[in-house]
């Protein structure tokens, strides 16, 4: 019977990658294990990977979606191993639960690129990600210096409680505004990352608070939801809205900035493009790679929105 | 039982009832539908808690909070509405709530099987105990309920209309058990609307009216007419009304009607049935339990769907009978045998139940017209003498007979040309029965054709112009209503010309073994 799956390059070899590197002549099956494509950011990560991989002749990428379930993601990786992938890219739903299976893959000699969220050991080849605390701080500093240099009131719309980014984006923001004691966070709502919850939560915040100068949302959809609520109340010009993520898609934050609804947003890079580049280094160029690749954020305002959109968009 | 009082919300069901049953006595409890018989017995068996009143058993005062309490005190009850688990087997039903256990406290299936066999043999019913209850006929289910109650070895056994779903042969078997209970000193309360049964089995009787005692009598010394007078308040001169002769026009003509076996099997489907009913004629369907009467009526009402073959003509025109809708559209009405399962929407009002079939005709383009509905309901309640607090009362609060009349009313509103009735007086009191007979006579006189199945031969003989006798799904003979006798019907129904228990059971066995072979 013909083999449906490309022969594994690293079936029973040693963990040293260079040893069995087949270089440009090989064909490589890459498994991408995504935590939850229902989050636009993660869908974008998949799309970036797919677009980047399309440029590399030797690569075939297969995707799995864990739909936010750690156990499913473990099974997804197990299934990839059963199929004999040559490289694993994983964006873990949570760190601890995925650690064991990622270690197993790594110890079987499969290069592992961990995206966005680390695992709890260093059994991976490269981590690519951004720093949420850093982004939160950048947002805070932007508010403290650009939007409210003379102080003012901030309403915060938080992501799903308990999720790490929500915690870090909140903490970083507070560090960022600490320099300006005139800034006060007067309301906090929980929008669970969702546009509609951002909207209804901010409606209530508007009712309870007469005076709001800046709305800081942990992601762009919630910022957009807040904008809609303010617009309906006729108060959208009283305040400014900032978000995070800046996805380069029509429904993303860059467009919202470009069209003037948001004052600013901060790029939270998906690392998809970078992951394929790293994979190329490992598999095709047989090169060693750094253990960590921290991606920088970028402030998007009306000035650079169109340019960044064109640069980051996948097609 | 002394001074029992019970209210249900606003309904005053029992207003201080006394009842005394002696050991070894079979005590009949009589009364119209809704008189409070079942409620009184539900009090006795712990299902319903009385508002006032006292109960003593063997001189000891008792108070039951649950049916289990009552059972522990030696009170067993066969409930009017069959209370068995349809998905469970006969065996499992027999031991429901008191399953035997092994030494290891696990379920003792072997003991259950053994015992079940004995219990069924004891009341003389041939049934595989491993059958699922829902695959049994209503009568067979009733026998299971009886066997279950008997096996409780109770001091007091309440039978609430145990015979309403039974054919005569099974009634016989039930009655054969009663003397044994008597000898054991069991006090039996026997509720029935069949006066003839009361006369055969009961020693004394108590009559209830409107939640009160209306009298107590000794059966051997009292004429039925007197008992009826106590129940109804006035004598019923004539149970069966006079009838007009049928007309000439053939309303229903059935030729070669055959229904293919249901994939699940277990039914006696009609086979090669030829039958005619004229306008204004009442034709009876007689037969033993499981002769296929219900199935024939089902088929004529479109319930056999595409399994039906042969021709059915109404007023000379062939009709399509793929569904009840077809049948209703063709002018056929059907009062099914089990009003609770097949007839009524219990949580809905009397009015809603009455207009259910006629809604589209009373409405305009799907929009209801409340006034027309109201007047139709009011007319039905008036014409059929339906006893209800109001048209908006939940139909479940009505007495059995009145519930039955509600199903009647529903189909009469569609002014059918042909009315199919399956045991229409099951569980109906004698007053209501005579009203239903009078209603049938009136409908027939108005030109309606009526096809009625019944297990009560006197009823068939009293109201029918002709009686078709069924056996194994076939019409074996059609007798003239005036000249037919019970013996003749039974003879035809049970295959051979002898009517002794011996002969027929041999025949039945022969039939059974012949089919197996």
């Amino acid at each position, binding site marked *: 019977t013909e083999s449906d799956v490309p022969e594994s390059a690293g079936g029973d070899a040693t963990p040293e990658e260079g040893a069995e590197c087949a270089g440009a002549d090989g064909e490589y099956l890459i498994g991408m294990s995504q935590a939850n494509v229902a989050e636009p950011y993660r869908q974008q990560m998949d799309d970036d990977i797919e677009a980047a991989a399309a440029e590399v002749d030797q690569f075939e990428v297969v995707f799995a979606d864990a739909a936010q379930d750690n156990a499913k993601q473990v099974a997804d990786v197990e299934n990839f191993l059963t199929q004999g992938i040559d490289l694993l890219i994983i964006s873990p739903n949570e760190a601890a639960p995925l650690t064991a299976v990622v270690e197993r893959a790594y110890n079987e000699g499969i290069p592992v690129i961990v995206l966005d969220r680390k695992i709890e050991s260093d059994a991976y080849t490269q981590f690519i990600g951004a720093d949420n605390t850093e982004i939160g701080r950048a947002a805070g500093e932007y508010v403290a210096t650009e939007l409210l240099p003379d102080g003012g009131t901030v309403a915060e719309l938080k992501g799903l409680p308990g999720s790490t980014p929500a915690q870090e984006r909140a903490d970083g923001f507070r560090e960022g505004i600490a320099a300006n004691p005139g800034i006060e966070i007067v309301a906090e709502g929980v929008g669970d990352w969702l546009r509609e919850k951002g909207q209804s939560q901010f409606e209530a915040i508007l009712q309870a608070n007469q005076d709001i100068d800046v709305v800081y949302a942990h992601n762009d959809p919630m910022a957009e939801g807040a904008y809609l609520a303010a617009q309906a109340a006729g108060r959208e010009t009283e305040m400014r809205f900032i978000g995070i993520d800046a996805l380069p898609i029509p429904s993303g934050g860059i467009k919202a900035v470009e069209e003037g609804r948001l004052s600013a947003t901060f790029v939270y890079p998906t690392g998809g493009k970078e992951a394929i580049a790293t994979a190329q280094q490992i598999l095709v160029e047989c090169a060693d790679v750094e253990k960590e690749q921290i991606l920088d954020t970028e402030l998007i305002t009306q000035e650079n929105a169109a340019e960044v959109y064109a640069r980051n968009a996948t097609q | 039982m002394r001074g029992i009082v019970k209210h249900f919300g606003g309904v005053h069901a029992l207003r201080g009832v006394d009842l005394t049953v002696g050991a070894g006595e079979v005590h009949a409890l009589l009364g119209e539908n809704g008189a409070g018989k079942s409620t009184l017995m539900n009090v006795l068996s712990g299902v319903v808690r009385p508002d006032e009143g006292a109960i003593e058993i063997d001189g000891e005062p008792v108070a039951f909070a649950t049916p289990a309490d009552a059972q522990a005190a030696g009170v067993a009850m066969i409930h009017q509405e069959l209370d068995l688990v349809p998905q469970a087997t006969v065996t499992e039903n027999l031991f429901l709530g008191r399953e035997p256990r092994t030494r290891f406290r696990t379920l003792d299936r072997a003991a259950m099987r053994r015992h079940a066999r004995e219990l069924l043999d004891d009341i003389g019913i041939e049934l595989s105990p491993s059958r699922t209850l829902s695959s049994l006929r209503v009568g067979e289910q009733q026998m299971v309920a009886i066997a279950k109650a008997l096996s409780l070895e109770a001091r007091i056994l309440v039978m609430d209309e145990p015979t309403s779903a039974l054919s005569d042969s099974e009634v016989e078997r039930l009655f054969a058990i009663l003397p044994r209970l008597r000898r054991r000193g069991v006090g039996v309360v026997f509720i029935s609307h069949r006066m003839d049964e009361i006369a055969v089995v009961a020693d004394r009787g108590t009559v209830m009216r409107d939640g009160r005692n209306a009298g107590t009598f000794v059966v051997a010394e009292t004429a039925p007419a007197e008992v009826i007078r106590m129940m109804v*308040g006035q004598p019923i001169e004539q149970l069966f009304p006079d009838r007009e002769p049928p007309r000439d026009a053939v309303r229903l003509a059935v030729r070669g009607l055959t229904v293919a076996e249901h994939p699940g099997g277990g039914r006696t489907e009609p086979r090669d049935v030829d039958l005619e009913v004229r306008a204004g004629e009442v034709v009876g369907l007689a037969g033993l339990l499981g002769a296929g009467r219900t199935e024939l009526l089902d088929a004529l009402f479109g319930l056999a769907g595409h399994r039906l073959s042969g021709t059915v003509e109404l007023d000379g025109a062939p009709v399509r009978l793929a569904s009840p809708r077809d049948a209703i559209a063709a002018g056929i009405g059907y009062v099914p045998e089990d009003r609770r399962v097949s007839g009524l929407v219990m949580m809905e009002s009397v009015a809603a139940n009455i207009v259910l079939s006629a809604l589209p005709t009373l409405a305009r383009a799907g929009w209801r017209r409340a006034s027309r509905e109201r007047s139709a309901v009011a007319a039905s309640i008036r014409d059929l003498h339906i006893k209800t607090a109001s048209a908006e009362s939940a139909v479940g609060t009505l007495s059995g007979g009145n519930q039955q009349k509600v199903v009647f009313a529903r189909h009469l509103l569609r002014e059918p040309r042909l009315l199919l009735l399956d045991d229409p007086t099951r569980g109906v009191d004698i007053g209501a029965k005579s009203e239903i007979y009078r209603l049938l006579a009136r409908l027939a006189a108005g030109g309606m054709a009526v096809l009625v199945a019944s297990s009560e031969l006197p009823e068939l003989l009293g109201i029918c112009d002709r009686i078709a006798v069924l056996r194994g799904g076939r019409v074996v003979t059609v007798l003239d209503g005036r000249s037919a006798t019970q013996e003749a019907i039974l003879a035809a129904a049970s295959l051979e010309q002898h009517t002794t228990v011996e002969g027929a059971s041999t025949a039945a066995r022969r039939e059974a073994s012949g089919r197996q072979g």
Partner: protein
Amino acid sequence: MSVDTTEPTAEAATKRRRFVIPERFFTLQSYVALIMVFLAAIVFSPRRGGEIVFLNSENLLNIVRAVSEIGILAIGMTFVILIAGIDLSVGAILGLAATGTASLLMVHDFGVAMTILIILTIGLAFGATQGYLSARLGIQAFIVTLAGLQVARGLARIWSGGQGIALAYGDGADVAPRAFSLLNSRTFNGTVPIPALIFAGVGVIALIVVRKTVFARHVYAIGGNERAARLSGIPVTRVKVTVFAISGLLAALAGIIHAGQLNQGSPNDGMGYELDAIAAVVIGGTSLMGGVGTVSGTLAGALLLGILNNILALNNIDSNVQLLIKGVIIVAAAGIQAFRSQQK
């Protein structure tokens, strides 16, 4: 003859003077839970300059707007539950409809009317298919619609490539007609949100349908006793299919509103809405066993949930504590219903 007769009392023959508690009393009772939550909301409302924020007319209108989608889903769900069914797919159909709306308007440049027509038809067809599978083939509605949920979600994701499609308004190609942005606006001098108005309209229509149509009687009869309904000549399969089709249609309508309200259609919209809709129906006193329930109760149930979310948000309650409070209040509201129906 030896009879000790108690003479039958003549006038007792008909028990007509039974004390019957008027129906209206119970109808009112279905709002008990709503009224209690409303009063509690007033008590716990934050105040601003002496004004009770909760009672602010804008806040009240916001509540109606916020529940409008769940409310519309719940109305369809009421009919489904009345026939002893359940529809777990409504949230996913909402997502499919929102995605489809945005796609048709933005990518395919359909007009508003055409888009709405197509999307409603899709919802109707999806619901009717589920109804057919459940009513005709006898597959339990829970399973059919659970599968339907997955299928609708999958279709929506495939349709949009997984991402939400943003709506931009304007004239010409690649933007949506301005008329569609009406859904995101308010009428009567900018006070009443259009979605709230649509919700009210659907509610009124449903109330009329329930009171005035033969169809509704058939729905109740089927839920109460399907066999009796069949024997009464009611086209059971057709009514059931219609009920699921209505639920699908209303879910599609809610999806269109969703896209309009949020200027975006995303395949992940409406996740979990089905449970909120079912909660609204049950809190409103409709029995999951079928046959018993009212649309007005459902409207009350939806408003109750909306008020609850609102007052918890106004007070900035920790969202985890919110979960607890909502759980307890849902049980309490259902408990009041259960008690009520036992009394009855």
